[in-house]
């Protein structure tokens, strides 16, 4: 029953035009970035290598597909949460707004399972969005720019990762990025349980992300204690996999914080959805 319900929920997501906004936005934005980098990528490279260029020359294919993919993923992981919240924030509140939730809850399936079926369908959508992003960034990027070593720019210097040592980093990095986006999907779904319209959860999700990002960025001693436990601090945890040597402790800590947030938010969503009075 759960599988059938999940399948139905996925069909509902696929049938909504807003679901394709995310795909279109990613295609357009990544396409523009690829064109811009093709035309003027050398200037970006000089930002990276500038401090060294007086005495050193960087030879080889510096502007390659791996670097382009890394840049695109860095840029878009910030914007993808909005595209995901557009869909997952609408899962409960959208049905309430349309008045179909009453009909939905008359089915011989528990409210918890209905919620889980929506949640799994939302996660599947998140996965597809991220997969599309990875395809555009990595596959199309390598097709246009070729392959080569990856230069990762960090606050304290430059790391050069050899090309044979990059594929697994992208793979596991995208898995962690998927976990971060699932956390966003969970947040917007939870907020959707509290709302009767779609705009509220979507705007609230983005508002929370922006607020927590500001708290995480401002270097104020007051926030130092809570900063490690904000989910926004760990949304970019996938970048830890592009460090040398690898900081596995940081990776596992970020994964645990994200999983903890997911479990807590799911718990709140289950509680609220089960107790919700259907008035529409």
């Amino acid at each position: 029953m759960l599988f059938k319900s999940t399948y139905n929920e996925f069909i509902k997501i696929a049938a909504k035009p807003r679901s394709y906004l995310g795909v279109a936005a990613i295609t357009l934005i990544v396409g523009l970035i690829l064109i811009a980098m093709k035309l003027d990528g050398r200037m970006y490279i000089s930002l990276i290598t500038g401090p060294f260029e007086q005495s050193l020359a960087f030879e080889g294919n510096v502007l390659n597909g791996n670097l382009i993919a890394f840049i695109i993923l860095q840029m878009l992981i910030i914007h993808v949460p909005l595209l995901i919240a557009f869909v997952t924030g609408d899962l409960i509140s959208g049905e309430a707004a349309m008045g179909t939730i009453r009909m939905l809850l008359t089915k011989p399936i528990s409210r918890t399972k209905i919620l889980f079926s929506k949640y799994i369908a939302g996660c599947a959508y998140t996965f597809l969005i991220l997969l599309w992003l990875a395809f555009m960034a990595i596959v199309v990027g390598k097709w246009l720019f070729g392959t080569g070593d990856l230069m990762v720019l960090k606050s304290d210097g430059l790391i050069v990762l050899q090309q044979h040592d990059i594929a697994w980093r992208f793979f596991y990095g995208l898995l962690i990025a998927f976990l971060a986006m699932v956390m966003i999907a969970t947040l917007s779904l939870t907020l959707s349980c509290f709302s009767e319209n779609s705009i509220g959860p979507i705007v609230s999700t983005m508002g929370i992300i922006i607020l927590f990002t500001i708290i995480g960025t401002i270097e104020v001693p007051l926030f130092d204690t809570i900063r490690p436990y904000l989910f926004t601090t760990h949304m970019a945890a996938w970048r830890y996999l592009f460090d040398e040597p690898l900081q596995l402790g940081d990776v596992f800590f970020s994964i645990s914080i994200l999983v903890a947030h997911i479990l807590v938010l799911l718990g709140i969503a289950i509680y609220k959805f089960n107790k919700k009075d259907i008035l529409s």
Partner: protein
Amino acid sequence: MFQLNKTTQASSLKLTLLLLLLNSFLHSQISTPNKILFNVYSQLQKAKDYSVDVNIKVDLPFIRMLPINAKIFVKQPNKFKVESKSIAIVPRQGFDQLNKVLNDTSQFTAIAQSTETINNVISNLINVIPLQDTSDLVLAKLWVDTKQNVILKSLLTTKTNGTILTEYTYGKYFNYGLPDLMKFTVDIKKFKIPKSIAADINKNIAKTDDKEKKKGVIIIKLSNYIINKGITDSFFKDRK
């Protein structure tokens, strides 16, 4: 009739001898450094073009990377190309700078400074000072092994690329002036980038002393030289 007495004659003779000695000393001072550099340059000119397999190990502050293998192509007087599947970091004043310095003796003054022992080899330290203000080179210090006509160490200061110290170790290709090992020591400025483009924006980095200039080392091992096989100019054309 005026006659010089014996004392005056002896004094004149001594003075003349002294002037002759001084003249020959000065003359030898002027010609020897140039001659040394000419011999070195002539030896370098034996290899009109060459390719060599290199292993580049980088030990620079602010850069972390594994050693890489590459192939370097050089053609006299100033063509240079690196072929590598990996990203290779090489000094800007690398393989063709010495040729540029030595190819025209009328463009500089060479002054012998002293002798030094480097790795149990006695070398002549020669300072090369360009004659023109517009020259990119500010000063070159060359430690030359005059027996083998090779440069053991060089310290080049240019306006565009700063100062670089290069130490050379030779093997079987010494008669072409081609080393088996080159060790470059370069100055690196403080690393500073906008935080927004760094990959670790959440990381708090301890502030370092802004005035501190750091040194880095690049070690290049050279092997499998292929010399004077004829590399066309067009081969170097796609170098940026």
